[in-house]
């Protein structure tokens, strides 16, 4: 195995493990912390794919800002295991079964698809993820969605103000 393969497997295992920990942690603050670990692992993957800008922005925006606000809110709500509502056992069983079925179908479909075998992602190649090229693509070919995204944010902002103001 080459060095980048080792890093890839390490990051993947880390990402999956932390993602599972997000779900099974009893304490919501711990869940958030594991989620941050997931973001770090994903950023590592981005760097492997030579998408440095995406990796760093992922850290700044998700790990650095959004997750802090999550923590902020969770800390203020003072959630703990006692206040957690009891879930219906049947619902749990049904959920596990349907989720398991979906997983089985997906995995078997992926295994049977011939196109995926013997293919790995290009690691460390391609320069579209570099900040300069990304900027050029974003402001030439994809300038319309970029601008329209601002409409989306404006609408979300108006909405937040409406919801947030005192009646």
């Amino acid at each position, binding site marked *: 195995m080459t060095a980048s393969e080792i890093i890839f497997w390490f990051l993947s295992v880390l990402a999956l493990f932390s993602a599972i920990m997000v779900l099974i942690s009893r304490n919501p603050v711990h869940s958030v912390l594991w989620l941050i670990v997931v973001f770090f692992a994903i950023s590592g993957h981005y760097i492997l794919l030579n998408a440095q800008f995406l990796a760093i922005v992922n850290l700044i925006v998700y790990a650095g800002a959004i997750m802090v606000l999550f923590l902020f809110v969770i800390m203020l709500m003072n959630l703990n295991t006692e206040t957690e509502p009891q879930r219906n056992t049947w619902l749990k069983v049904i959920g596990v079964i349907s989720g398991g079925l979906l997983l089985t179908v*997906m995995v078997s*479909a*992926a295994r*049977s*698809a*011939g*196109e*995926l075998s013997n293919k790995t992602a290009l690691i460390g190649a391609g320069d579209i993820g570099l900040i300069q090229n990304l900027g050029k693509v974003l402001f*030439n*070919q*994809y*300038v*319309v*969605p970029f601008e*329209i*995204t601002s*409409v*989306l944010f*404006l*609408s*979300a902002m*108006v*909405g937040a*103000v*409406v*919801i947030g*103001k005192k*009646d």
Partner: protein
Amino acid sequence: MICSIIVRNKGSFRHIAAFGLLILLIANILETYGKDFFHVNTMQLLQFDRFGFLFNSIALGATLIYVLLTGKEIEKSGKYAAEYFTLIFFVLCGIFILSAYDNLLMLFLGIEIMSIPLYILTGSDKRNLKSNEAALKYFLMGAFSTGLMLMGIALMYGGTGTFQLEVQRISVGMYKGVSFLEITGLLFLMVAMAFKVSAAPFHFWTPDVYDGAPAVFTSFMATIVKAAAFVAFIKLCDVRMTATLGAIDWKLLFALIIVFTLLIGNITAVFQQSVKRMLAYSSIAQAGFMLFALFNVNDVAKEGLLLYTAAYSLATIGIFAILVKMKDYTFEGYNGLAKTQPVLAATNTVFLLSLAGIPLTAGFFAKYYMLAAVVKTGSYIWLVVVGVLFAAVSVYYYFRVIQAMYFRNGNAATETITFSFKTGLIILAAIIILIGILPQVLLNWFYF
């Protein structure tokens, strides 16, 4: 085109909003006939075609009627009337993107611009616990479906290497150029879209949200927004799903969804006590009928969808406009309405008949075109039979309202009804009957 939408977003109060809508409507109709006001190079991300323009016109017209009829109620529903109108304009902006998208990125943006203001509008009645609950439920479920949609788009990108709707297919592997990733992505995307149009089994949010939201906004959500989601869905089916028919049997999948949706929507609607909740379930049932258009996308289906949009939106807007004037939303609340408010009762009957699909109303031809689209395929005739059966079931619960209005004794309490409101309702009912007699009035536009 886009510029005009964004500029108009500042519409503040009822009259300005109505005026803005009118201008947009005129601009849109003119543009349908090839007069460009703005030319924006969208890099093939958006593509305005006849179908999209016509749909935009219908959506704008319906919104105009909606604002004229229930503008006062919107102003009453909270302190921030100006913001509510702004949010409605944002929703419209999303709808225009959806009717013209040619790229999955734009599909995502359109869906989001349409959905986010709706979450807010649902929760606009801040003192009402039910409204809050509805908003939170809608938001959480909506966010989840958005996640699925993004996942689907990402997988489709992985499978085809492009966000563009039309794909140049190169033959690789066993599926004649259709990648496994693309199929999985499409499935995810289908689930997310089915959620947006509230098709079973992804309909669970609909009754609670439609019931909890202030009635004025429910009427907007249940009509124009839903139709826009259908238009986005039909474009997706038209291009992507037809192209991948070799790899997966979409028809069977859609047939199952249609049957489920009709079953759940109609049967549950029968047992409702509140008219508002009944309408929520009936909107699921109507979604089942609109899904027929997706089953086999052809010209009849597209015409049908446009007609259905117009018929269903106009009728539902009318019913809700009357509903918000009622003091009591249960069936008992309608008892004896024909005696106290004959005009309201009469127009309401027309709207309900149209929803049920009785001949001479717009709803009849709408349903007819939908079923005709399936008949054209030759197979799946059983599906048409199921559709007709459930249409018959739906007559039952729509007639319960009519029965309550005309044949029950009671004193239906309403708020004060103005003369202009009555006039508006009569015009609306007239339009529905006109489309019901001469559906070509609307459809001829399609072939200009």
